[in-house]
Every structure is written in C-alpha cells, then in structure tokens.
C-alpha cells in the first residue's frame, strides 16, 4: 500500500486517491493501524465473550423462587453453599475431576509413543498416513462416534461377542463409567497427539545423541532428556483433554449408566429441565475455577509455547 502511495503521489483525486491518502495516513501512524486492526476482534471478545461470562458470574449469585421458578435478583451465596454442603454435589465434582484426570493421563501415555514414532521414526509417507488417521475422526460427527461405541459395548455387541469367542467371558461394559472413560479417551486422543508431536519434533537429534555419547542409556535419555523437553507439549495437550472431559455431558448421557452424573449433566438438567439457571451458573463456575488453576499450573510448565 505504501508503495502505491509513493508511486502515484499526484493522483490524489477520485476514489483511488482517497484510498491512497488513507493508507498513507495509516502508514505514518502505526497506532491508528493497530486500533483499526484490533477494534473489531476486541469488541467481539469483550461484548460477546467476556460479557457472557460476566452475566454467568452474576447469575450464579441469584436464586429462583422455588414456587414460581422466576429469577429473584437477590445477592447471596446460597447456590454455592448448596453445592459445597451437599455430599452428592461434592462427589459429582470429584467424579468429574477424577474422570478428567484419568482420561488425561491415559491419553498422555498412549499419545507419547505414538507421537514419538511419528516424529522420529516413521518415514514421511507413514507420517502423513498416521496424521490422517489421527485427524480423520475429528471430521466425523461426535454423535456418530459415540453411538458407534454404544454398538461396541452393548449386550452381545462387538466387544462381548469377540471376548466370548476368545473364551475370555463377557465384560458387559455398556452403561458403566468404564465405558464413559474409554469413549472420552478415544474422543480426545487427537488433541493430545498433535501438541506432543509438535514438541517432540522440535527436539534436535543432537541432544539425544549427546546424552547417549555421555553414557545415558535409553531409559535414562528418555527420562532426563526427552520427557522434560516434551513436557510442555504434554501439558498443552492435557489442557484440551482435561477441559473437554470436564465440560462434556453427552457421552455420559449416552453411554453412562446410573452413576454417570457429571458436572455437565447437572448443568444440563438444571437449565433444560428445572429452569434453575442461577444454580446451573453456579455449577458452571466450578469447572471454570478448576481450569483457571490448571492453566496457571500449565503456564508455569511452559505449555503455552506449544499451543
């Protein structure tokens, strides 16, 4: 744009001329350029994104009239007191965090060797094929994937049928939290593999060679060189797997059994059925608070360099 201005300094008339002068003015004033560039996204962020969160925060401190279910705009901590004093809600929060942690650890353990193979061992062609294999499920509908797991887990489904043929006996996983756990691990695995791969690929081969030259055995090198260097990638992936598990309610609804009440399900029933938006908002604060703590920890581990 600046070039245009310089080349045609005289044609300052008409439409093109106006644009030339505007671009010239902007070129001379970097702050104006920055303002123009940032105002739309910032306005969107503040008005739509932050405002919604603030409304959520405020609503959490209101109540509904138990008789009419109208929202009463009276400030109190009743909703939070209910959440923390009722053992059922406490165990639901613990169950949700436990599930998120279990899924995260499992995905990290599965993803690490996979990503290592992709980054260091596989040929270029194999690597591409593996990438496609990892990313392709993301193109399929979430519901289609969960329902296909339902068919695997069901009574006399693929899993029990295969185990039965193999003489192991049936496990009958459908409608258990094991089923929920397996489906979560499957669903969020790509979100772990990708950042771990990125982290591993960036490690220079010379560092591993150096470790071995200095007498580090395979496991020692993995533990002292590879893992610390890949850790930011693992933590970055864990942000996804952890937060996605924390907020999901559809998988527990579909493959979960009688004790598949997670934070998301409580929010869903309180908004969708009970019309108790303030309580749902208070419940929604819990995963937000957990994620805030988690992200602070992740930042300390350098995860944000990998996203």
């Amino acid at each position, binding site marked *: 744009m600046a070039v245009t201005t310089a080349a045609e300094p005289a044609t300052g008339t008409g439409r093109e001329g106006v644009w030339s002068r505007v671009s010239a003015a902007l070129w001379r004033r970097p702050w104006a350029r920055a303002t123009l560039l940032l105002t739309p996204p910032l306005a969107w962020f503040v008005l739509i994104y932050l405002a919604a969160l603030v409304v959520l925060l405020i609503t959490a401190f209101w109540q*509904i*009239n*138990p*008789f*009419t*279910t*109208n929202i009463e705009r009276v400030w109190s901590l009743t909703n939070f007191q209910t959440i923390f004093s*009722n053992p*059922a*809600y406490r165990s639901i929060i613990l169950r949700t965090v436990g599930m998120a942690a279990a899924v995260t650890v499992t995905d990290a353990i599965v993803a690490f060797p996979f990503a290592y193979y992709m980054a260091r061992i596989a040929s270029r062609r194999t690597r591409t094929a593996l990438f496609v294999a990892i990313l392709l499920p993301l193109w399929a509908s979430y519901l289609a994937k969960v329902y296909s797991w*339902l068919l695997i887990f*069901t*009574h*006399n*489904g693929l899993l029990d049928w295969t185990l039965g043929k193999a003489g192991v006996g049936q496990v009958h996983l*459908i*409608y258990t939290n094991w089923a929920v756990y397996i489906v979560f691990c499957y669903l969020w695995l790509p979100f772990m593999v990708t950042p771990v791969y990125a982290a591993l690929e960036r490690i220079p081969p010379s560092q591993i060679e150096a470790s071995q030259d200095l007498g580090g055995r395979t496991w020692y090198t993995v533990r002292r060189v590879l893992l610390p260097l890949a850790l930011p990638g693992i933590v970055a992936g864990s942000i996804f797997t952890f937060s996605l598990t924390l907020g999901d309610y559809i998988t527990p*609804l*579909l493959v979960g*059994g*009688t*004790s598949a*009440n997670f934070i998301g399900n*409580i929010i869903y*029933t*309180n908004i*969708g*059925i*009970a*019309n*108790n938006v303030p309580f749902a908002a208070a419940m929604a604060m819990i995963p937000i608070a957990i994620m805030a703590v988690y992200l602070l920890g992740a930042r300390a581990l350098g995860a944000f360099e990998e996203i």
Partner: protein
Amino acid sequence: MIALHRRRFSRPLSAVLALTAASVIAAGCGSSSTTGGTTPQGPGTAGLSVPTAHLPVLQKVGKGEGQLNLIAWAGYLEPLWVKPFEQQTGCQVNGKIANTSDEMVSLMKNGGGGQYDMVSSSGDADLRILYAGDAHPVNINLIPSWKDFFPAFKSPPFNTINGVHYGVSLQWGPNVLMYNTKHFPTAPTSWSVIYDPKYKGQVTVPDNPIQIADAALYLQKHKPSLGITDPYELTQPQFQAAVSLLATQRPLIEKYWSLASQEIFDFKNGNAILGAGWPYQVSQLKASHFPIGTTVPSEGATGWADTWMLAAKAPHPNCAYKWMQYISTPKAQAEQAVTYGETPDNKLACPIMNQLQKGSCDLYHANAPIAYFNTIKLWKTPIATCDNGKPECVPYADWVSAWNTQVK
C-alpha cells in the same frame, strides 16, 4: 423421531414451566397466602379468575380469513391431515414448531399475543396460558365432533374453567410398563416388577424427575399409610418415601433413558427386558417385530393430555374454528393418533385407526373404556400449594434436586 425427542425433552421442561404457571397464580394470590380456596379448579388456582373469561364467544363460524397461524409440537402438523384441511377450507396453515411448553407460553405472548391463532399445549402448560390471559373462550357448540369425545376430555379441568372452554382437547397418552415377552410370557400385573431385585440390571426408566410421581403412584396403592391421594401433590414425608423407593430401585436400573430411541435400542439389544416408556416406543418395537409387551398395571400409570387452545387475540378466528372442527373429526383424530402414537379424544376414531394400521385402535387404547382412563394420572406440575390450599406440598424444583442428588 423428532416428535419423540420433543416429548422427551419438553415434558419435564413443560412441567417446570407450568410451575411458572404457578408464578402467575402466585402473583394472583399475592402475599395474602389464602388457604382453603373455594373453587375446586386444580392446584393453586384458588381465588384466581381467568382474565379473558368475560370475552364474547363466536356465535357462527363465518368465511375463513385464508390464513391460520399455529404453534404446535413437532409431528402435530403433518401434511397427511393439514393438506386436506387447507383444500377444504382455504385456510393456509402456517406452523411454528415449539420445542418446549415454555416456548409455547412465550410465543403466545409474542407481540402482544396478536400473532398466533392457536397452540397445541399440554395439560401442564394450559393453565399457565389461561391464567395469563392469553387464551380466548371457545363456543364449543360450534364444534360438532366435540359431542363424540370421551366424557373425560369434553370439559377437562386443564382447558375448561367454570364451564368456559378455552380450546378443544386433542390427544393423550399413558406412560406404560413395557416388557420383553420372551422373559414375561404373561403380562406383569403390577409396577412392582421394576422394583424387584430379581431383575437387577435389566430395568430401564426415564431420566426424568417426574418419575417420582410414578413411585408415588405405586406407593399410593402399596403403602396406604402414607396417605397419598395425588402423585403430583406430595407432602414432605410422602415425597421422601417416593424418593427412597427410587433410590432402592437405582441398583436395578440398567439405564435411565433420555431419548425414546435409547429405550428402543436397549430393548432390541437385550440391555433391558423391562421398563417404563410411551406407546410410541412400543409401536416402533412392534413395527420391527420385536417381542414387546405393554400394559398399564393395576396401580394405574402417569400420562399427558394436549389441547388446541384458542389465542386471546387470534387474528383468524374463523379459520381457527374451522381447524377445531376439522382436527376433532374421527378421521383427523385417527390419522394423528396413528402417526404420532397417542390416544385420540374422539371415540369414533377407533375403526378409522384400524383401517390406517391394523390393530392400532387397541394398541393406543382408542376404544378404551372409562375404567382405563381413570387409571391414568395426567401430568401436572407439582407446586407448593396442595389441592386443599395448604402450602405443604413439595414444589417441582425440589423434585429435580432430589432426582439428581438422592436418586441418581
């Protein structure tokens, strides 16, 4: 399918929302907290009057206005019966599908209420619309087929107040006991089977706080000492007894189903052999030749009932009356009943249903005597004020939290 889902999600919702109906009522009662209302019109409505009750009704159905704006449940405006209506009357039907009773209530208020002519709301939302002044009195004499309705649906308390009609009843359905006939050669006669430890891990019931009413209905017969008279009006001890019963049932449950399709899946795959569901699931399973049996056990069952309500400011009243005349005829009633899987209110619909689908009249109880109807406790919203006017009953919000924290 869609219709299904709306049933599933809207019922509980609508229940809550009709709770908000109570808000209207509460506003009416004010802080005076009148106990011992005199008019036996239903829970919490004591001392309240319908703001539109005095409006003059139409005396003669005139020429149609050419348009008819309807708010309906998905599946209630199928071309099968809407097309012939349009051809006969020249009234073009403009349907707005609502997903919840709440949406229906707010749509009826939209733009001051002058936009829509009618709504196909359920028994738990009707009173809310009525007492908010959004419904118009209906001259039932202008609807010939009304006289062929089962008596219970001619002037039901959810759409007729003090003898004034605010719409014409539509269809209804029970929540039935479903069982796999391979495991139950003879039909169970009591709901006790779904509380029987013998069937551990083989039972499926709806994931819905209104299930507490099903437990209360069971206790009404089996624990008379609790003194339950209405499964939707429970005092604290009665409520706790029902919740405890459901808590002991929990280990037997294979799945609390959220979608009707889940229940069909579970029966088909053998995850469940026994459960509570709707006639729709039964008809779907029967259609695929699955050995499914269905019964309303001796304790009775819960159920729902819908009404076409006339809007207070309906812009096309003549077409609205033509619609009420049409949709209450045996043929239209039969077509909707068979398509959707519910029970028509017109007793002449039965033979036509059998023409449309063999055996469907029996399947959906369209020929059922009054004895069957009396066993069905139609859904209404639990509110704090009991029928006797005392504020001793457990409101629906508590039903939801009990369902989430004590049952599940």
